């Protein structure tokens, strides 16, 4: 598709042509989405044939805008965050042509949702310590183990999975990355209740689950490298684009304006400090997005999540203090599986409790500080004893 658009103007024309051919009003949603994928307008920075046009990532925003203006349906990206943000770029980078053809289109259209089977109770931040075992038997792998912190596992059709295929080598060397069919026998998904009362995540028990070898992503033993790429795409996805007073500070600012009777001098000073911190973080994200758009990713990206977690936690904590007696009430402790996670939704108590996860999920703040100190500032890594020992000999 070397005849594809190369300028914003040509791309605009292509979108217009596509819309003329598939008028949103008269086209079935799924049909529209599949056609959009086939037209390379799903993610323009992906290659032709994989839903893209091989264009700079920065042009995607233009496509979204023009399609939205025309009233086109979207692929409900929030319902498939793991698939779009983590599985897709990894499949693109490491998948065979066949894998890309099989998985990317239904992933993008939302026909197949994805989840992530990385974390384990015993591994925590130390992803390379996973102990879920995959043993090759003929053209298949037999997988046994327990995963945790899996959001959407009960709805997902597929999972990205990291398992240990060789316990006799050092821990980073013995991992392999798979695409796991969540409907396969032996996959048992159980809700994991968290401090909010909800079960937003799941535990997933894998018992003699068979995975065909052609669902292996990357080479045997290459799982650490593939998983690292997945996690890096996750971190890039954060930040940028937020509006002023987005997020938790916006919630608190609105309460402050609407309820003068709650105001105190203590809360006022804290609110102003948090407002400023949120704003400078927003500006940092904006600058980062501009750098990314011209192909100069800045090192400050790794700090955005740190700042976001801190602000959300401080702000939601302050909100409860501001509410006083009202802050002592909660909405609902019932064990439910929420459809969506909305950090700024529900009641103030929920926001406070849920925000505690912001500094744990997707890389703890402690790990992120290590990353910043070592990769950005160039400070020495932690003394480690586990890099070279065979995994099976590590103390646990």
């Amino acid at each position, binding site marked *: 598709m070397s005849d594809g658009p190369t300028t914003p103007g040509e791309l605009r024309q292509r979108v217009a042509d596509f819309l003329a051919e598939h008028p949103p009003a008269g086209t079935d949603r799924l049909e529209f989405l599949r056609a959009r994928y086939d037209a390379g307008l799903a993610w323009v920075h992906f290659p032709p044939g994989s839903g893209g046009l091989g264009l700079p990532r920065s042009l995607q925003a233009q496509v979204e805008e023009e399609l939205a203006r025309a009233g086109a349906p979207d692929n409900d990206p929030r319902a498939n965050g793991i698939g779009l943000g983590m599985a897709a770029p990894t499949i693109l980078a490491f998948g065979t042509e066949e894998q890309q053809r099989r998985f990317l289109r239904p992933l993008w259209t939302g026909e197949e949702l994805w989840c992530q089977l990385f974390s384990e109770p015993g591994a925590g931040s130390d992803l390379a310590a996973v102990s879920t075992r995959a043993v090759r038997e003929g053209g298949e792998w037999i997988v046994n183990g327990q995963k945790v912190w899996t959001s959407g596992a009960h709805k997902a059709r597929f999972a990205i999975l990291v398992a240990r295929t060789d316990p006799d080598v050092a821990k980073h060397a013995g991992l392999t990355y798979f695409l796991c069919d969540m409907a396969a026998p032996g996959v048992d998904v159980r809700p994991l*209740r968290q401090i909010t009362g909800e079960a937003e995540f799941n535990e997933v028990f894998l018992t003699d689950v068979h995975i065909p070898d052609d669902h292996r992503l990357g080479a045997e033993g290459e799982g650490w490298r593939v998983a690292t790429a997945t996690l890096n795409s996750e971190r890039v996805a954060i930040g940028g684009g937020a509006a002023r007073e987005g997020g938790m500070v916006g919630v608190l600012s609105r309460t402050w304006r609407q309820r003068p009777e709650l105001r105190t001098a203590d809360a006022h000073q804290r609110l102003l400090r948090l407002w400023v911190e949120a704003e400078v973080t927003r500006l940092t994200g904006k600058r980062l997005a501009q750098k990314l758009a011209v192909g100069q990713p800045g090192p400050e990206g790794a700090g955005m999540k740190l700042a976001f977690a801190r602000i959300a936690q401080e702000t939601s*904590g302050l909100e*409860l*203090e501001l509410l006083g007696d009202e*802050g002592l009430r909660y909405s609902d*402790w019932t064990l439910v599986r929420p459809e969506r996670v909305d950090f700024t939704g529900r009641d103030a108590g929920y926001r406070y409790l849920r925000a505690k996860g912001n*500094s744990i*999920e997707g890389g703890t703040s402690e790990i992120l500080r290590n990353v910043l100190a070592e990769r950005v500032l160039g400070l020495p890594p932690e003394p480690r*004893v586990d890099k070279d020992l065979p995994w099976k000999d590590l103390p646990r």
Partner: protein
Amino acid sequence: MSDLDLLPTDVEDDLRASVRELLADRCPPSAVVPVYDGDRSSIAPLWRALATDLGLAGLLVPEERGGAGASAREAAVVLEELGRAVAPVPFLTSSVVATTVLSAAGPGGAGAGLLAALAAGERTAALLVPLGTAPGGRLPGFAVDGSGRPAGQVRGIAGALEADVLLVPVAGPDGTSVHAVPAGDARIDPVISLDMSRQLADVVLDGAAGERVLGAEAGDAAVRSGLEVGAALLASEQSGVAQWCLTTTVGYLQDRRQFGRVVGGFQALKHRLADLFVAVEQAAAAARYAAVTVAEDDPDRTVATAVAQAWCGDVAVRAAEEAVQLHGGIGMTWEHPAHLYLKRAKADQLAFGTPGTHRARLADLLDLPAPAAP
């Protein structure tokens, strides 16, 4: 203020040991967590064991009025242990706050029988003032109806669900009187609370008969004294919560391994825990001093209480937040008890006024005034 003894006596050490032992046996986290799903069946027997078997209900009541004749020192020790266990019992609301209010009435007065019954653990009372009310804050305004019965409603009462008797502040032209009303005659609606181990209730009074236990000349002072003693001793509960969080987190990190090392050996965590340790020790000292000033009725009691509340509320929250964070994912789950402490700590921070409210009180007490309005 400088000569008060901040060290525990042997009697207090013994008391602590008994309470801790009983709670370890009868109030593990697994006994607390069901209250979040509405199962409150463990509360009454636990409270009976503490109140009657250990005789804690009457700690603050003089012997001649049917109590144990102990002081706020001993009550503080109990609260520290109750905090360590996030125990869902009405000790603070009944045996501290309600008891302090009732004690303001002289011996032989209207509330004497009730006070003796509270002291014996036979009855349990709650003061109808919202949990978030600071000692200097606005009191709810119950009125009396035509037949002299208190009427009105109030939201967010702690201890009401466990109480047999409600102490009702009634605002009149000459001041606030306090009436004792049987809980059975009130409408008590349970509230889904941030801290279900101290579940709140909304209370409506409409025509319930009661006994006036404090007259209009004494009620306001008595209620405020109840709130101040409650605030002073809440600091010990907060100190206990903070200690549990610190100790449990240190213990976890001494065992947990990641990246081939004991996680507690990572220096960034060591330094955070060292700083937290300092803050927790400061909280213990501040809470202790507040309790001692109450016990001695020292003139510094009001400052000591505000200082303790300004400090301990934040420290308990910080300790609980660090516990959740440093336990990693497991700390976010329902199955680990850290969440019980986080919820208690955050609710305690709002109870009897936030730290910010107490700092504002200190500004007045210490002649450190806010800037004049521009």
